């Protein structure tokens, strides 16, 4: 039919591609024409290997009506360029195959596993058109040659380990995943077994590996931030205009943040990589530079210390946003092995995992179903879903932060507490002293106070509050709904004062003390309602969606309590029971924690009680957690920021 001719690829490129593990992707444009010579790719191989050759071919020009067949052939050659038999006849059956390439349905996959014959050093993969007429323009051809030999042998052989490591490193690590547990265990072992002087370097290496698992390309942005902060610090200490330099570096980093977050809004159709954690580490960059300008910290001359501060892996995804003065010295200090501290850290991390996997991911099913634009659900179920979302976002975010704090505690590093039972707040102002404490304190210190705070009169104070929360909204997301969410919180803060006065008037009229339990409960409920209402904007896909949810929620009918089938909202009866029980447990523990540490309480009990509590917690996490086959793992909510 046809003879084989080489492709446009050079032999050197092909050899380089085979040297890469495991994926080698080539984007190719060429034309296959019936009657002409087939296209070919070369690759170096070793006799005895078992390799899987797979790939995708996209031929957009092929019409649906033709029976479009592309045949691929695999041929082995020895050093003299002579063909070598695969040893399992007939050869066609072993090494050739056909697949149907219909251009109208997208790329077509082909795959073949072959045993490389002894004495082979080269593989040629050819594509041969078999259709009757017309041309086929091949838009993409990606080839993946994987050596399967590692899996033919026994476990724990050297090739087995390299294949295992390759699989493990091929994706990012979710903090609630087993991979993350394995990563932390290995890091802890290295951290405490190797000499203490190496501890910061182990942390740095671990953070680099962790970040690289998500994306290697994102290092351009993070590397630029680290370099800018390091050089900026140097220049600030040596220059007479430190504030100008500080401002320039901050603008540069804010520019990067704005470009990645808002780039697609202003340049629609483009695809811009959003580096993991850019919103969080940018704020850390700003806090370091401003603290440096204010003289609150000394300039850091060791670039690795700054790099570790910005890349420290428990923080990079969701914070808390730490100040250099608080975190920096801890990262570079030596930490002794302390079993009690590690135990406490693990307990905290498990509690975080419980909140995420048992409460947040379960609540998300109902919220997702009810809030969906096409659900058509109205009234009480929407209100129920709104309340559940408040619980979901708290359990999700605080869960992740607890996992981060727990892991850090195992390493001997204390991170600031980011939540203080925010739904027990008696005003929206109090709420922001308890919710995402690191962000609200950052906004206070680096936006609100520089704007003048409350020192320039009442009107200016209110304007500053609105500006701060507008910034907070924009930091969270690019949509109008986030901006309105931020403004709403600003308005709630402003109206807090009036609300407090009205409340005092009402309690006085009723002859009640404002600090009485009932009065406090009313204030807590009102604050919770305001915050829950605002969360609707946060959760919605966009502003019109938020308005439609609010309208649907307003359509409450009195009899809905009896009419609504609560188990039709996405969870069956048993899952709903578990969810409500878990929320009840969260409430009880939160109330308890207002007065005393639950961990200290349990740790002071007898051994059998401690063990029972711990084992019961782990078993309930294992049994009731939403994970594994059949569950779509839900990303941590704040990871998207």
């Amino acid at each position, binding site marked *: 039919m046809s003879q084989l001719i080489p492709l446009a690829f050079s032999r050197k490129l092909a050899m380089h591609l085979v040297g890469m593990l495991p994926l080698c992707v080539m984007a190719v444009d060429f034309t296959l024409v019936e009657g002409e010579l087939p296209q070919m790719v070369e690759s170096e191989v070793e006799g005895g290997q*078992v390799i*899987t050759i*797979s790939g995708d071919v996209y031929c957009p020009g092929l019409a649906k009506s033709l029976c479009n067949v592309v045949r691929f052939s695999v041929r082995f050659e020895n050093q003299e360029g002579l063909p070598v038999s*695969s040893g*399992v*006849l*007939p050869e*066609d*059956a*072993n090494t050739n195959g056909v697949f149907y390439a219909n251009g109208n349905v997208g790329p077509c996959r082909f*795959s073949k*596993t*072959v*045993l490389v014959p002894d004495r082979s050093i080269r593989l040629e993969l050819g594509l041969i058109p078999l259709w009757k007429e017309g041309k086929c323009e091949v838009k993409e051809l990606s080839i993946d040659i994987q050596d*399967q030999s*590692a*899996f*033919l*042998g*026994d*476990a*724990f052989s050297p090739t*087995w380990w390299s*294949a*295992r490591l390759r*699989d493990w490193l*091929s994706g990012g690590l979710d903090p609630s995943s*087993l*991979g993350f547990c394995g990563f932390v265990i290995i890091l802890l072992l290295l951290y405490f077994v190797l000499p203490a002087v190496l501890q910061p370097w182990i942390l740095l290496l671990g953070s680099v590996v962790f970040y690289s698992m998500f994306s290697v390309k994102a290092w351009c942005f993070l590397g630029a931030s680290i370099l800018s902060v390091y050089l900026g610090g140097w220049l600030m200490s040596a220059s007479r205009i430190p504030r100008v330099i500080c401002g320039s570096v901050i603008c540069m980093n804010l520019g990067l943040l704005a470009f990645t977050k808002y780039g697609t809004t202003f340049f629609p159709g483009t695809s811009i990589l959003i580096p993991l954690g850019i919103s969080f580490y940018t704020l850390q960059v700003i806090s370091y530079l401003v603290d440096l300008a204010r003289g609150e910290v000394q300039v850091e001359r060791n670039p690795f210390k700054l790099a570790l501060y910005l890349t420290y892996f428990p923080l990079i995804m969701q914070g808390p946003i730490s100040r250099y003065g608080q975190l920096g010295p801890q990262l570079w200090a030596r930490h002794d092995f302390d*079993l*009690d501290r590690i*135990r406490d850290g693990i307990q905290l991390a498990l509690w975080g995992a419980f909140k995420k996997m048992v409460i947040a991911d379960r609540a998300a099913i109902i919220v997702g179903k009810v809030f969906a634009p096409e659900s058509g659900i109205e009234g009480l179920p929407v209100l129920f879903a709104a309340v559940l979302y408040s619980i979901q976002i708290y359990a999700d975010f605080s869960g992740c932060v607890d996992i981060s704090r727990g892991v850090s505690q195992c390493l001997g590093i204390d991170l600031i507490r980011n939540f203080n039972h925010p739904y027990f707040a008696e005003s929206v102002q109090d709420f922001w002293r308890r919710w995402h404490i690191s962000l609200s304190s950052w906004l206070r210190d680096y936006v609100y106070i520089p704007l003048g705070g409350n020192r320039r009169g009442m009107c200016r104070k209110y304007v500053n509050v609105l500006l701060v929360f507008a910034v907070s909204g924009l930091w969270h997301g690019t949509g109008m709904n986030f901006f309105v969410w931020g403004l709403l919180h600003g308005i709630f803060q402003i109206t807090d004062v009036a609300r407090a006065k009205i409340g005092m008037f009402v309690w006085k009229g009723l002859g009640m003390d404002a600090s009485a339990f009932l009065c406090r409960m009313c204030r807590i409920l009102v604050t919770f309602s305001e915050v829950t209402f605002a969360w609707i904007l946060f959760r919605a896909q966009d502003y019109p969606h938020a308005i439609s949810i609010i309208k649907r929620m307003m359509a409450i009918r009195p009899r809905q309590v009896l009419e609504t089938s609560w188990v039709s909202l996405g969870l*069956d009866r*048993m*899952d709903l029971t578990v969810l409500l029980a878990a929320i009840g447990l969260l409430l009880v523990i939160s109330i308890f924690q207002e007065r005393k540490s639950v961990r200290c309480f349990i740790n002071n009990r007898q*051994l059998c009680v401690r*063990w029972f509590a*711990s*084992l019961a917690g*782990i*078993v309930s996490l*294992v*049994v*009731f*957690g939403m*994970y*594994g*086959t*059949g569950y779509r793992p839900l990303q941590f909510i704040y990871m998207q920021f």
Partner: protein
Amino acid sequence: MVIKILRTTAYLLALTVVFQCVTEVLRPKDQSQKRIAGFDKEVKGSLDVVCIGSSHAFCTWNPVHLYMRYDIRSCVYGSESQPIEASLAFVKRALKLHHPKMIFLESFMFSSATGEKKTKTAPAHRAIDSYPWGKDRISLIESMVPPGGKAEMYFDVRQYHSRWKCLGKDDFSICGERDCCHGCQLIGKVVPITQYLYNFDKIWDRGINAYLAVRLDQINQLVKAHGAELVVFTAPFHAVMENARFCKGLSRFLKSRGIEYLNFIDEKSGLKLDVKKDFADNKDGHLNIYGMEKVTDYIGDVLKNRHHLNSDRRYEDEWRDDIEQYGKMRNQEIAKWRQSEEAR
């Protein structure tokens, strides 16, 4: 410090035990799992022959019937849609525990052996869940399961934890019972099929995949190293032409390796089943009790006359009890099918 370390170690042991118990309770105890777990209940070193393979193995080979007629002790050790990687691991285990004289390997899933790790979750779990922990289990997981699905295999509680909603009394019986059928499945149903035999003189050789060739070589070397003999067989099933072409290639390959091959879809095999009475379904064409006994008789003749396998009359008491139980189950199964037919 020492006390703390000891306490921590004790805690970790307690955690492991609790975790294993929870996993065991949550793991499904269906017929398939019981059948595979039954292999562990066989008296060590008591088996002369082990049959390994997919559902066609345990619907074709009847160990109790074989013992009753030929005094040969055997067991079927297999799972539904069992891939060849699992068969290799099962062969290893069978050789280690029983040192059988022969291994019979059933070939239905051989044509799917491509090395591309496309084993579906359910067959993978059936094969892996009951396999004891060790290097072989890890090799099995790594060779069979694609990267995204390995966590479920290492920690099968990830697959089964949602079963807490439907736990029954059976789930709390961890010890398990001895399988009186020794791994085979009795089906009383009778479903006619069209044909299953082919004239292999007129069929062209499709060849076999190189990956399969490597795996079969590994199994053969393993069996030989233990001083046993390997026989590959293709059970009678509702074969199509493509299956027959594959068997032709398989036959040629096995011949080149000196491995005996019994091809029950070959007209010239010497075994003739009744397509109207001996099959239990017309999809894959598994055999029912009647077909299974006929094939077992044939294999018994091969073992006695060709391989001169003789009994040493050990473990008679255990097998006598099994025969009694088996007899009851066989009659129950046949009666059940007859009743359902009459009800229709």
